[in-house]
C-alpha cells in the first residue's frame, strides 16, 4: 500500500501508515482465511459430492467461545494502539507555533502572527511544530491535508486546532472535506513546506503589519479603547496581562482567559461576565469578522508580559 498512499510529509504520517498497514494485514489475513474456508466447504460439500456428512448438526461451544474471545482481544489491542497514536495526534507540543485560519464559503484565509496573510495557501517551515487555530465565518468546513494525515472540522462560533510538524519540502494539496455548499469541491489550496531559511525569507518578503499591530489598530477603530483604555471613564476591566490569566466571573466560577474566552467576550459578551463589572459591553457578532477577532486576540496576547502558549481545552 505504500506506493498508493499520499506522500508522508509529517512526523505523524509514518505512524499512521504503519497502523494502517498492520490492520490491513490482519483484516486481510482473516478475510482471505474466511474466503478460503468458505470456498473449500462450497466445493467439498456441494450437493452431488460424496463427502462424509456424519454428525453434521453438531455445534461446539468451545469453537463459538474461541471465535468470540479471539476477535475481542484483537480489537482491544488495536484500540489501544490507535488511541495512543491518536492522543499524540490531538495534543500539540507546547512549543508549537500558532498560525490562524479562518474558513468561509469557499476559501481559506490564513494569518501568520507576523501579519502575513494568505488565501488558499499556507506556508510552513520544515521541522517545526505548527499549531493551527481555526474558526469559521459561516458553516462547518474541514481542514484536510492528506500528506500530513491530519484533518479537523472548522466550526463557526468556536476554535478548533490541528497540529503537525512537516518533514518534507514540497507542495501538498489542502482540501475542504466537510460538505459546505455549492463550491465545496473548489475550496482547495496548497500547503508549501519550506526550509527554515527559505521560510524566514518568505516571511520577510510578505511581512505586513504584524497581526498584533493590526489588532491594536482595530482596538481603537472598533471603540474598544473607549472603554478599556486607561483614560476611559467607563468601568471596564484593564486588559493588560489578561491573556492566560484566571478570571473570576460574576456567577462565582473561574475561567482561564484563552483564545476561546476572549473570542466569546467579544462576540457573546453576556455568556461570561467578569466579576465586579456591569454587563454593558456590546456584542460584536455580525459587526466584525472572525479575522478581526483573531487580530484582536493577538493584540491582547501581545499585551501579556510573558509569552505563554495557549492550550485550549479541546
Amino acid at each position, binding site marked *: 500500500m505504500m506506493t498508493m498512499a499520499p506522500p508522508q510529509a509529517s512526523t505523524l504520517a509514518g505512524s499512521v501508515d504503519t497502523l494502517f498497514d498492520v490492520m490491513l494485514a490482519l483484516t486481510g489475513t482473516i478475510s482471505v482465511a474466511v474466503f478460503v474456508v468458505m470456498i473449500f466447504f462450497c466445493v467439498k460439500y456441494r450437493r452431488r459430492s460424496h463427502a462424509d456428512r456424519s454428525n453434521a448438526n453438531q455445534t461446539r461451544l468451545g469453537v463459538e467461545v474461541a471465535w468470540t474471545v479471539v476477535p475481542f482481544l484483537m480489537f482491544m489491542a488495536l484500540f489501544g494502539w490507535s488511541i495512543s497514536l491518536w492522543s499524540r495526534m490531538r495534543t500539540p507540543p507546547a512549543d508549537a507555533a500558532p498560525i490562524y485560519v479562518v474558513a468561509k464559503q469557499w476559501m481559506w484565509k490564513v494569518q501568520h502572527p507576523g501579519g502575513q496573510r494568505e488565501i488558499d495557501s499556507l506556508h510552513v517551515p520544515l521541522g517545526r511544530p505548527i499549531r493551527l487555530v481555526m474558526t469559521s465565518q459561516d458553516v462547518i468546513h474541514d481542514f484536510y491535508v492528506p500528506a500530513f494525515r491530519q484533518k479537523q472540522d472548522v466550526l463557526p462560533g468556536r476554535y478548533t486546532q490541528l497540529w503537525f510538524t512537516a518533514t518534507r519540502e514540497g507542495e501538498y494539496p489542502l482540501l475542504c472535506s466537510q460538505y459546505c455548499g455549492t463550491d465545496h469541491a473548489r475550496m482547495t489550496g496548497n500547503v508549501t513546506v519550506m526550509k527554515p531559511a527559505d521560510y524566514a525569507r518568505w516571511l520577510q518578503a510578505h511581512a505586513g503589519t504584524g497581526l498584533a499591530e493590526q489588532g491594536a489598530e482595530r482596538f481603537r477603530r472598533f471603540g474598544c479603547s473607549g472603554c478599556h483604555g486607561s483614560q476611559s471613564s467607563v468601568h471596564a476591566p484593564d486588559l493588560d496581562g489578561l491573556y492566560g490569566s484566571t478570571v473570576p466571573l460574576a*456567577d462565582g466560577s473561574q475561567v482561564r482567559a484563552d483564545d476561546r474566552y476572549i473570542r466569546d467576550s467579544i462576540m*457573546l459578551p*453576556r*455568556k461570561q*461576565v467578569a466579576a465586579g463589572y456591569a*454587563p454593558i459591553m456590546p*456584542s460584536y457578532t455580525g459587526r466584525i469578522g472572525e479575522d478581526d477577532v483573531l487580530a484582536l486576540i493577538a493584540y491582547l496576547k501581545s499585551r501579556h508580559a510573558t509569552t505563554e502558549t495557549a492550550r485550549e481545552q479541546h
Partner: protein
Amino acid sequence: MSTESAMLAQQFDDAAQQREASALGMWTFLATEALFFGVLFAGYTVCRVRFPAAFAAGSRHTDMLLGTIETAVLLTSSCAVALALRDVQLGGRRVAAWLLVLTAALGLSFLVMHGFEYYSEYREGLIPGIRYTQQGPLAGPMQLFFCLYYFITGFHSLHVGIGVILLLVMARRTWRARFSAQYYTPLELSALYWHLVDIVWIFVYPLIYLVGRAG
C-alpha cells in the same frame, strides 16, 4: 355489542390475545413518546449547562401562577380519567361518561390557559423569530430558552389537544354502552395515554417554570 368476543378481530384467536396485543402496542407507542420528549429534554439540558444565567432569567419571565394552576388541572384530570375507568370496570356507565367529559374539559381549560400565557408573552415580546424585543445582558442566549420553551410546551399542547378529542370520543362511546365490565380496552388505553401527557408535564413544569426561581 359490548361482549368481548363480539369485538374480536379476525386475526386473533381469543379475547385475551387481543387485549394483550392492544396493551403491548400502546406501551410501545408510549416508549416512542418518551423518546420524542427525551430529545427535547436533552437539548434543554445541554443548552442550560452552557447558559445557566440566561436560562434562569428566561424562566423568570414565565408565568409561575398559571403554570402551577395548569399542573393542578392536569393532575386532577388524570385522577378523573382513572375514576372513569374504574367506574366502567365496576359496570358503571353514566358517571363514567361524565367523568370523561370532565377530563376533556380540564384538558381544554389547560389549553386555554396556555393560550393566555402565549398571548401575554407575545405582548411582552418574548417570542424569538416572531416578536422578540428583549434587550439587556442575557437577551441573546435567552432566545435559546424561549425556542425550547415554545417547542416543548407546543408539542405537549398538541398531545393534550389530541387527548381531548380522544377522551370525548371515549365519553360518547361509554355513554352508548359500547364498553362493559368485560370489555374496556380502548378506554383503558386512552387513559394510559392521558397519564403519559400528564407525566410529561410533570417534567416540563419544574424545568420551565421553577429553575430560575430556586436560587
